[in-house]
């Protein structure tokens, strides 16, 4: 049987010490909030992608080449990522314009509105102003769908979304089956069910 050399023992000892220090380091680290920068960059990608799938009612106040307007209501959660996602990437031959506002009234004519406020009560009040309007409302608060929002983004290891079909119908928006296949959940007739 091969004898352990002093060098081998030193390596093993060093490795064991380092492992102990490493584990101790892990255990002593305080908890911290999850970094959400990348999650919102992915959500920006979704905001750019949704118009390719969703069907709006026939246009009344704009032509087919009018820009898609995306309203961001509340905090600046996207940084540059929403602009990056939409720049020079027209969808259905229509470019994008971004509107950021602190008041719901300023974005009620947008095609899509993202509710960036984290306060569920404020979001609930803001959502009420979009009832019946052909606006794709998107948010991330826990009861966003129950309160009448159309798409709720869920941030975990990956970013997924659920769709409120009742609210979409009320807004006159058609969510195609292809989009529903990618959703993680569908809210219909007052119940949320897994989509896949």
């Amino acid at each position, binding site marked *: 049987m091969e004898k352990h050399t002093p*060098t*081998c023992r030193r*390596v093993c000892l*060093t*490795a064991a010490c*380092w*492992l102990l220090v*490493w584990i101790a*380091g*892990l255990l002593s*680290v*305080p*908890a*911290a*909030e*999850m*970094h959400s*920068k*990348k*999650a919102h*960059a*992915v959500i*920006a*990608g*979704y905001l*750019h*992608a949704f118009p390719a*799938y969703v069907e709006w009612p026939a246009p009344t106040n704009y032509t087919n080449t009018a*820009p898609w307007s995306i309203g961001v209501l509340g905090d600046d959660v996207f940084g*540059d*990522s929403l*602009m*990056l*996602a*939409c*720049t*020079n*990437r027209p969808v259905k031959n229509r*470019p*994008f*314009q*971004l*509107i*950021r*506002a*602190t*008041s719901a*009234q*300023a974005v009620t004519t947008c095609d899509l509105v993202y509710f960036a406020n984290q306060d569920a009560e404020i979001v609930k009040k803001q959502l009420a102003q979009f009832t019946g309007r052909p606006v794709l409302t998107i948010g991330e608060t826990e009861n966003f769908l129950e309160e009448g929002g159309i798409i709720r983004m869920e*941030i*975990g*290891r*990956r*970013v*997924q979304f659920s769709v409120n079909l009742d609210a979409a119908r009320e807004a006159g928006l058609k969510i195609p089956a292809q*989009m529903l296949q*990618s959703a*993680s959940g569908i809210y219909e007739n007052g119940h949320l069910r897994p989509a*896949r």
Partner: protein
Amino acid sequence: MAGAVWLVSLANSGADPFTNTSSTDFGGLSLDQLANVRIDIASVRSRPMREQPGIVSVIQAEEIRQMGARDLADILQQVPGFGLGADVNGVVGSSFRGLWAYEGKLQLIVDGVEMNETLYGTTQLGHRLPADAIAEVEIIRGPGSAKYGGTAELAVVRVTTKGAEQNGGYGVLAPSFVSGKAGADATGGFGYTEGDWRVAANAYVGENFRSNRRYTALDGSSVDLTHNSDIASRMVNVGVGWKDLNVRAIYDLYRLEDRINFGIPLPLDEQISFETLALAANYDWQVNDWLIVTPNFSWKRQVPWTGGVPGSTFRTVTERYLAELSAVMSLSENVSLLTGLRFHYDHAQVTDARFYGLAPEEFYNGGTSDSVSYNTFSPYAQLDWDWDWANISVGGRYEYHTAVGGQWVPRLGITKTWDHLHMKALFDRAYRTPNINILNSPASSDATSEQTTSYQFEAGWRFHDGVSLVGNIFYIEIHDPIVYQTDAKMISEGYTNGRRIATCGTELELRYRHRKFSGALGYSLYALTRNGVSAWESGVSRLALGIPAHKVSASATWHILDNLLWNANATLTAEQRAYVFPNVDAISLPPTFLLNTFLEYRWHHASCGIGVANLLNSDSYIAQPFLGGAAPIPGKGREIYLKLGFEF
């Protein structure tokens, strides 16, 4: 009350060409692709390119496709600082920033697996790693030893192949024609996601050749390479994922027909092959919302530098077992820490040493064994701190090799971004541990580790209309460089440590991106400021043997119609010094201008492209960047190629 409103119209403004689309730009992806993007919790893993503590180039599939690139070497030709050089046996590799990086100083990683062979640490290029299978090439221009270990001494090239996010497949057939010879490449693959499962596969078969011109050795003898430099390349790459578990298998075969040998042409062709089979698995275990622990295991079996002429052949099988445990911690909103432990075991067994006139059991350990093994152990850490006035990245790696001892390499990076401007100041130490056959073979001597110190400074400006300009200056100094030297008849060969060598220089990149037109212009310059290696002397101060001091690269793509594009790309390299018959001393070869063009028409799921490489039929040479007894290998003449592709 309307409240505060801002409005940005994005109809005509340019996209940010600075930004690494893989980390901050997710526009243009499908819903399925977006649903599969992993959200890392720490900026150690994902940052915009401008903020990364390194000088990084990212080239993605669409840009690769537009330029009509056929392999990794075509892509690297467009990157400032890189050049091609010749090793023995007609093998081609890369130089970087005036230094011969090919042997143990450039780390090539494919889908997380290091592809450098472990006998000498080399990376072969030219009709290897098909461009059509590549989703992204990330090039870290500068040392990466602190994060990636040895062989990342000067640069790291990370190739990511097309994966499960395709939710479909592709195939590309690329026949090529050059005066007197034809070649062909076939690449295909698919990738799908289904629930928590992901699967992707890419396969490649290439039958090509190095040159259709005549090689003239230093003794005046010559050989036509048209039918004596065939290159057969094969690759199968399969990845399977389930939730956060990833498993990867790669098979790569690169076989050359060689007549050049060590400089004086052989009477008959010999076959030299490099074979790699690798299996790797890792699991990203999210312990909680601030910690991800990733165990990583891999096994790699390689049979490099195998072949020779009958009666003078060589074959060694190497294996590497690697176990690594890393953790990414988000210590606060602004501080993240990457730390890890890596262990690998290297084993080499000779089965044929007739090239050296030896029996296998006489090859290692001073002629007493046919095998040898080493252990390497390395803890490493990197702390990223996003401070108000700058981002600080500090880290290092300690590596202990059972035959060589310990190496400690620290690094420090400071980056600062404003709206349009960014600046980076980087300090790195790096190293190269002598590889198996440098430590322990008849060719070895008493070579010890080499150490590198690098200082880099980068500044970049982002213009409003989609134009960006980035430039850097660098200084690299290698202490005790490991130097290979041989002669035209391979009467003797060996490795020694040279004295200090240093280069400094600059690199510039101008990029423009618009819906109809995009382009890039690159320039790189190096100068030797110190050369203590006689085998790399060119006879001209400030110029290394075989490596041009100046390189200009340019690429322009015009979207003529929505489905028709045209690309022209070119490289201009300054004179290079090389040994050429009948001169005794190195002489200057004239500057080289290579112009390539590619036209592609896309129709539904099909595409048809036609390209011409070396449109002007210019003379080009791949010179040896060390005193190795070989004359420059002539490059190919004008080559016409097709790319017939489909997607499903």
